[in-house]
C-alpha cells in the first residue's frame, strides 16, 4: 500500500565525513569522523519515518545533511526529484520553506532575547511573507494550533516550561506551511508526562496538514508508536529499514534484535521473563571504524566473513532492507 505513495525525499549514497585536522597554520587532514557513510533511503509523502540508533551513530547528522545544513561529502539528496546539492542558492532558499526542523533542546533552540511572537514570525520575515499585521495574525493562529494561549505573544522563552517551549519550536517550524519536517529528538529533553502531549500534537498536525516527518530518536518505544516505517542506524550506516510492524515482528539484523531486547518494558512479570541479548563493549569511535561489517566487534553471531566484508544493503523481503551476512542465523537469536 505504501509503495504507491509518492517519494518526497530520496537520499542516495549520502556521505558526510568531518575532517580531523592537525596543526594551526599548516593544517593537514589526519583522518575523518565518518558520521554518515553511504546511506540510501526514501521518505514517502505523508509518512513518518523513524530513524533510531545510539548516540554518535550519525542520525542527527543525517537529518541535518538532508536539510543541507551540512554540505554532504558526497551523494545526493533529492526533494521531489530535485537534487538539493545542485540547485542554485536562491532556489534552494525558496525550497527551504517546505522543509523545516524541530530541534532536540527546547532550551537552546529559542533565542532568549526574542519574544516568542518574534521567534515564530522570524521565518515569515526572512521569506518576506505578509506585513506586520498579517504575520501577527499568523503567529496567533499558530499559537492556537499548538495549544498555547495567543496572549503569550509578548512573552520570552524563559517564561515557559520545556513542553511549552517545544510547542513554540513546533509553531515556528509550521509558520511557512512546510511539507516535510525533520524532528530531531523533539521529546527526549521532556518529562515523561509531557512527552505524550508533544507526540500527540505532532500526530494531530500531521493529520491536519498532511505533513511528512523524519522522526529521529533513541527511544524505541516512542518511535514504534509514531512511525510508519523505521530505519535503524549503527555507526554511520543503515543496518535495517522496514515497515514498523515488520521491523518489530520480523527483525533481521542482530543489532536491531539486541537493541530491541535491551529496551525495558514497564511490565514487571514480562520484564523478568524476557530474553535479553546484552551487547558487549561500547560503540566504536566513528573516527576509527572496524573493518568489514561495523557491528562485528559487538555482534553476538559474527563470523569470519563479517570481519572481511562489508555486507551489502539489500531488499531481503518487499520493503524490508537489511545489511547483514547472516540474517538467518540472526533470526534464530531470540528463539
Amino acid at each position, binding site marked *: 500500500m505504501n509503495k504507491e505513495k509518492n517519494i518526497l525525499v530520496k537520499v542516495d549514497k549520502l556521505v558526510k565525513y568531518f575532517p580531523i585536522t592537525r596543526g594551526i597554520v599548516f593544517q593537514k587532514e589526519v583522518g575523518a569522523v565518518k558520521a554518515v557513510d553511504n546511506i540510501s533511503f526514501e521518505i514517502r509523502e505523508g509518512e513518518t519515518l523513524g530513524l533510531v540508533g545510539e548516540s554518535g551513530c550519525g542520525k542527527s547528522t543525517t537529518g541535518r545533511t538532508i536539510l543541507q545544513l551540512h554540505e554532504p561529502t558526497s551523494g545526493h539528496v533529492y526533494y521531489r526529484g530535485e537534487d538539493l546539492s545542485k540547485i542554485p542558492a536562491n532556489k534552494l532558499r525558496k525550497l527551504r520553506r517546505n522543509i523545516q526542523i524541530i530541534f532536540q533542546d527546547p532550551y537552546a533552540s529559542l533565542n532568549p532575547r526574542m519574544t516568542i511572537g518574534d521567534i515564530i514570525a522570524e521565518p515569515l520575515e526572512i521569506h518576506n511573507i505578509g506585513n506586520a499585521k498579517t504575520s501577527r495574525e499568523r503567529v496567533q493562529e499558530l499559537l492556537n494550533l499548538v495549544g498555547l494561549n495567543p496572549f503569550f505573544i509578548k512573552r520570552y522563552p524563559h517564561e515557559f516550561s520545556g*513542553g511549552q517551549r517545544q510547542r513554540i519550536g513546533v509553531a515556528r517550524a509550521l509558520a511557512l506551511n512546510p511539507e516535510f519536517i525533520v524532528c530531531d529528538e523533539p521529546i527526549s529533553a521532556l518529562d515523561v508526562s509531557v512527552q505524550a*502531549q508533544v507526540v500527540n500534537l505532532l500526530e494531530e498536525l500531521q493529520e491536519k496538514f498532511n505533513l511528512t516527518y523524519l522522526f529521529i530518536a533513541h527511544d524505541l518505544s516512542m518511535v514504534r508508536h509514531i512511525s510508519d516505517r523505521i530505519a535503524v542506524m549503527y555507526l554511520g550506516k543503515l543496518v535495517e529499514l522496514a515497515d514498523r510492524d515488520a521491523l518489530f515482528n520480523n527483525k533481521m539484523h542482530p543489532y536491531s534484535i539486541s537493541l530491541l531486547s535491551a529496551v525495558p*518494558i514497564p511490565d514487571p512479570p514480562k*520484564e523478568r521473563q524476557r530474553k535479553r541479548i546484552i551487547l558487549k563493549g561500547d560503540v566504536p569511535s566513528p573516527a576509527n571504524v572496524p573493518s568489514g561489517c561495523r557491528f562485528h566487534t559487538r555482534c553476538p553471531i559474527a563470523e569470519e566473513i563479517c570481519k572481511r566484508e562489508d555486507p551489502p544493503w539489500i531488499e531481503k523481503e518487499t520493503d524490508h532492507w537489511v545489511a547483514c551476512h547472516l540474517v538467518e542465523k540472526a533470526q534464530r537469536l531470540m528463539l
Partner: protein
Amino acid sequence: MDNREVILDIRDLYTTFHTREGIVHAVNGISYQLHAGETLGIVGESGCGKSVSMLSVIDLLESPPAKIDAEAIYFKDKNLREISKSDMRRIRGSSITMIFQDPMTSLNPVLTIGFQIKEPLKLHLGMNDEQAAKRSAELLALVGIPEAENRLSDYPHQFSGGMRQRAMIAMALACNPTLLIADEPTTALDVTIQAQLVELIKGIQKELGMALIWITHDLGVVAGIAERVVVMYAGFVVEDAKVDDLYGNPLHPYTSALLKSLPRVDDDQEEKLATIEGMPPGLLERPECCPFEPRCSFAKDICRNENPPLEELKPGHRVACWVDMNTGELR
C-alpha cells in the same frame, strides 16, 4: 510481610531551599522504610524531589541554601540527623554509597581512575597504597573492565561513558556498603549500555547482598530491577507498593496516568497516547491541597481543600488519594 531487618527508616523528612525567589519546597514530609537487601525504586519526574530526598538522607546538600528537617532518619540504629559530621563522613562512602547520574562530571578529571578508587579504601578501611591498588584492580575487574590493572593509571577522559559509570560503581562498592543509592545511573547512557549496567548491578547485588535504592524517571527500568516502588510527585510520596501491585493495580491517579501515557516497545497501539494535561506544580509554595489535583481527572472538592495522607489501603500498598479510581467516588 517483610521479615528482613529495617536498615533505613525515613520519618517525616522535609527539605527546603532558601533562594532569592523564595523558599523552594523540594521534599514535603516523606516517610518510608527500607529493608536489608531490598531493591527499592524511586520514580517521579524531574523536580519531584527524588534525588534531593536521598541527598538529604546522606547529608550531601550544601546548607544554606538547603535546610533539612526530619523527625528522624534511622540507618540501622543510628539517627543520621543527630550524629556528628565526622560520624556521618564515616558512614557516607563506606556503609552508604551513591552512584550519580552523570559519569562525565562525577569523576575528578585530573586524578587517575586508580587514585579515585583507592581513596575510599584508604580512608575507610585504612589500607596502605599497595593493598588499595590490588583491591582497586579487583574491583575494576568485578565491574567488567578488561585489563583492569593497566587501566588504573588512566584518567577519566580515557574511559567511555559506560566505563566511567562502571568505575563509579567500583568506587561505590569499594567498602562493601549496606546500602547503595543509584541516582539515575543509566539515564545519560545508551540503551545497550544501560542493559549492560542493569545486569551488572543486579548481579553484584545478588553476590554482595546490599540494599539498593534506584532513582529514575524510567518506569521500564524499575519494572525489571525493583522489588518495591515509591512514586513521588511535587515532593510528596503519592504511592508505595510492591512492584507487581504498582504496575498491575495502581491506586493513585498519577501513577495510573503515567503508566498509560507510556508507549511500549512490545505493543503496537494505534490509538493516541493518554496524556496528563498541564505540568507539575512549581515548588515555591507548599501545596495545602493535593498537589496532583489540578491535573487529576478524578478531582473532587475535598482534593482542593485537604492533602490526602499516605495510607496503607492494602497490606504493603500505601497511597495518598481521597478517591477510589474504580468507582470514581471518595473512599
